[in-house]
């Protein structure tokens, strides 16, 4: 991928906590102190995720599973619109 394309993609990436509710996203990167824990429960790169609610603890579904996670964890997940 060219540098320009990489830049464009980075710009459109959001963290899961910034993402708007009711939309589908694809996980671009999981980065932060809890990344292993997040990957283990299903927030792996490439996976599709739908955000359901906002708030202190947000709800989302990954492959048909409902998961609740706190904001500081959601901050460690970067997504792009799917």
């Amino acid at each position, binding site marked *: 991928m060219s540098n320009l394309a990489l830049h464009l993609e980075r710009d459109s990436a959001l963290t899961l906590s910034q993402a708007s509710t009711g939309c589908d996203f694809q996980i671009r990167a999981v980065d932060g102190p*809890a990344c*292993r824990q*997040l990957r283990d429960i299903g927030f792996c790169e490439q996976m599709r995720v739908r955000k359901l609610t906002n708030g*202190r*603890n947000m709800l989302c*579904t990954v*492959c*048909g599973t*409902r998961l609740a996670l706190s904001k500081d964890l959601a901050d460690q997940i970067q997504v792009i619109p799917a």
Partner: protein
Amino acid sequence: MSSSSIEAHIALIGNPNSGKTTLFNALTGQNQKVGNYAGATVSRKSGQFFTPHGHQFEVIDLPGCYSLSPNSPDEEVTRDFLLGDQEGETPPDLILCVLDATQLERHLQLLLQVIDLGYSVVVALNKIDSAEAQGLRIDPTSLSEDFAVPFVPLSALNERGIVQLKQALRFPFPSAPGRLWKGPAELEESIELSTKVAEEEGLPKPEAHGIQRIACPEDADTEAEQFIVKTRTEFIQRAVEAGLQRPDGSAQDFTDKIDAHALHPIKGWFLFSGIMFAVFWTIFEFASIPMDWIDGAFGSLGEWVTSKMNEGDFQSLIVDGVIAGVGGVLIFLPQIVLLFLFISLLESSGYMARAAYLMDRVMSRVGLSGKSFLPLLSGYACAIPGVMATRTISNAKERLTTILILPWTSCSARLPVYVMLIPFLVTGSLSQTAIMFGIYAVGTITALLAAKFLKPRLGATEPPQFLLELPPYQKPQWRHVFHQVRERAFSFVKKAGTLILGISILLWFLGTYPKSDSDDPVVQQENSAMGRAGKLIEPIVSPLGWDARMGTAMLTSFAAREVFVSSLAVSYSADSDEPESVRETVTNAKRPDGSPLFTPLVALSLLAFFIYALQCLPTTAVVKRETGSWKWALGQLGGMTAFAYLAALAVYQIGKLIGYS
């Protein structure tokens, strides 16, 4: 070949709530506890079964884990077992990997990790009926080809596909497929090197240790780890492209509709409080009917025995010791049955995880997370499974804090004491329910405040994180719910028939001997061993408003809380000639000056003591095991007893000052 010998060991492994324990029960015909939330299995269990070919296998049910990089102590058990690091255990011959068909992409991660370790694997594709109902189309043959291991679709709950699974477990087992992906030369070299190092260290299963050390290193998030995670995810995505079709996911399903209310920031709390209040109200309102029967039955039994036996010590032992003691505790069976029924129902239906989600907001105020709520709620039934359930809490300090405060969530053993004491405070079932609710609230609030006080002092600084799977709602598994309730009820009856019977007889002896020459029962009781012991501790308990006999009953209750009720029944029954129920006996008890002993204030002081005291030696033993030190276990015992004493003291003295009697 003898048919009774075990030919191979199979380990059940899978994500939490993938149905391992249900499958284990279906395979072995056992009835282990099943919950619909992560962490129902906190330690390993084993059982045996025969395949259609006549082979006998041992199957081991391991705690659920999301991956082989452990995030909590229960996941560590599983990882160590698979790596052969668990002391006294040999690595299994085959892994039966349980995957939830409705969440295939997520659960396949664990399968790949297990295959990477070099095990022979058979996959139980569980909950296939739910997957079909959701419109998922799964092709087990295609998945079997991609992963090079057999996939057996089944529904453990409805026992569909169990025979096919047993048939797939052909002995001797197929050889392990081995790692399904390849990394760049550099990575392959380092895996090879790490395997060699493990071999030289003399570790069991060196090839498993080799890959595990690279894929899941001590210092998280290395480049190699990232590469492996990415490669595994890509492998899975390629496999599911051919083997799984999801329907268009826009339709709201049943669980979404309920969750819109159950997790709503306002409606959710109304629902939660409503459910909790209904639980406690039912325990009070409906349980009173069978309780009156039991009370009456033991009363008539006492009268009947009195009329059939000659008066004397033996009659007194049977009527005042055995019947009064055991009857005084058995009467609470209906309430314990109801409490366990509700807790099992909440677990089994999936609501428990929603309660944890709601409670996270409250728990975070005191430095805990919603994950601590599950153990704390189990603590309302019994502290021991509650302490065990803290293993799902990943943060060590949060776990220790939860263990330390857990006995302040009122367990069911306190219920008999509360139920006996509350009628001294108020009458009417609604106000009694309100008081009961208040007692649970006081215990819980103090526990939470204690957590706020303790956690920073234990050296915990990082804020709690919350990550929880919310399982879909399902109809309760009635068979398992009833089994669990039956088991609890049975163990309660067994306790009444053994420990409590023994203590009742002992108390009767201590309360009867040595005999005095006087015929006056009051003088006689003062002369007995118990009367003397009571006199000794009277100076300590009289500031609480208690008399010597309550003090003695409290001492006996350190063996088990319920004993308090039967101790009172036994020691006060000497005051009256007529056999009567516990409540009557205690209500009629008088001080030497003739004033009633159980005034509302005394009852309140006793309640305060029982809310806070840790009178349960088995809990102390489990806390020692779980925290690994006597320091915490004994500190908790001493601290809680002291706090209970001070609370009862404060209640009685302040009550007296303001003129409440």
